[in-house]
């Protein structure tokens, strides 16, 4: 299971990456593995408000469905539309294929998230 060191993680298996002042959000390798073959993702729209801890997208696999929770609060500036046509990209590389890009409201929220090491320890349990 891959857990890139430069990302921050949540207990509900999302990751956050900060790049040029924006936050990219996706699901972890562990999450995609648990879901199995992903067949559909319901994406939010640009300029939607994301509230930390609230669901903003839904992912469906053949035999499961899961909500994606916002790790941080912010406003959606872009959604990864490639996922609409090819949701299986999340299986292929869950870190390259982010779900939304947001304008962070409060950077300090990042501090509450887990490091790669902490996340790995949690997933092992």
């Amino acid at each position: 299971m891959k857990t890139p060191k430069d990302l921050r993680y949540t207990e509900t298996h999302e990751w956050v990456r900060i790049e040029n002042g924006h936050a990219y959000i996706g699901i972890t390798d562990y999450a995609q593995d648990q879901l199995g073959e992903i067949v559909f993702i319901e994406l939010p729209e640009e300029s939607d408000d994301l509230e930390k801890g609230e669901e903003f997208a839904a992912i469906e696999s053949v035999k499961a469905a899961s909500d994606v929770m916002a790790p941080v609060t912010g406003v959606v500036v872009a959604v990864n539309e490639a996922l609409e046509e090819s949701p299986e990209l999340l299986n292929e590389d869950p870190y390259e294929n982010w779900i939304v890009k947001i304008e962070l409201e409060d950077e300090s929220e990042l501090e509450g998230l887990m490091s790669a090491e902490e996340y790995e320890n949690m997933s092992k349990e």
Partner: protein
Amino acid sequence: MAKYYGDLIFEKSVEGRKGYSLPVSPVKDYDMDENLLREEEADLPEVSEFDVVRHYTNVSFKNHGIEKGFYPLGSCTMKYNPKINLEVSKDPRFTSLHPYQPVETVQGILQIYYETQKMLAEISGLDTYSLNPYAGAHGEHVGLMIIRAYHEAKGDFKRTKIIVPDSAHGTNPASAAVAGFDVVEVKSNCEGDHCDGTVDIDHLKEVLDDEVAGIMLTNPNTVGMFEKDILEMAKLVHDAGGLLYYDGANLNPILGVARPGDMGFDITHINLHKTFSTPHGGGGPGSGPVGVTKELKPFLPAPVVRKAGDLYLVDGIGKDSIGQVSHFLGNINVVIKAYSYLRTIGKDNLRDIAKLSTLNANYVKESLKSHYKLPVQEICKHEFVFDGLKDNPHGLRALDVAKRLLDFDMHPPTVYFPLLYREAMMIEPPENESKQTLDAFIDIMKKIAEEAKEDPETLKKAPLTTPVRRLDEAQAARNPRVKFKDLLED
């Protein structure tokens, strides 16, 4: 050859063929307003009557039914569907009645309806039943609306929560949500990984408060365990002001032995297509009658059939009724079959159904626990759950075992439910199954367990002999093709 028979009816269509005959009408042709007509005609098949008969006969060959072989699908009670039930239900004096015929012309069918209500009430220890709901999940929805109506009638509008165990059928939480409730999950008794599916009473106490409208339970539960502490649980829920809803999917093993009403349940639904032998029909029509205590009777949906003197009557929506949940009186022809079964079984045989379905389940459980992981050791009722293979060096899954069973003309158990176990295989061998059939199943299940060790590839590839082999389900969901024309676009 297989290809030809495998085609869709649309692929057999030939312009100019027909499969019907209608009388020549002496009535003249009346015009239709052009503005109201469709532009393109519906593209339906053109086939002869014999084409249709051969087509659907061949389509049928691709199905496994209970008359062909064992069908131990957990929580579905795949019991024998007696022929006499079908014979009597087909009488045109039942099938050709319009639902709005005057009651004096339908006394026979109303008597069946009324007596079925009475018998179900007696068997489940409740006051009366509505036979309007079309299926188990429909019954749940109706029952939950009754719970809401009961609280609202008392002026209590704060009860917005329904408690559902984590072992519950998926319909339970879905029905609660559809009826506008929030779902609160109550945990099962677990020690480490070992869960027996019975409700954790301490956790129940924790979640009970004055916002709880009621609790939905199956007893025996989905692991096949009887909730021994049901009387205590009923008291706790009632003391908290809530009501108890009984999901009747698992009623079979307590027929004539114990009654939900006596356990403290206020509302039940019964699946006539499970417990009372009406055909499952490839997924319906079923019937999900809802029973209630005397106190809740005014809230039942309409129409209601009652008896006044010697006359059976149909009543409309009463003052406190939740209203209508079906266009007419429900799946009547299914009710007739269940009535025929109830009269055939009678009081004298009812308890044997409970006993033998329980005997069968325990016999299979004890015979196979050497080869499959048995999370709950106690005596079960009509069904039980294995948690995958016991000795499993190649990491095969419940799905692999299920698929391999298909090669032996047996329908697999319910797999991956209940959610308490990762490799759940829920087995229900109904009372009609003989020791010989069970022994054959046991032998095959053991053989598969051996194969899992010695020849894992066969299991992974299974089934090998079915009309089609394992399917690419992801393809179907990613690129949904859901009608014939979607195939032509490829």
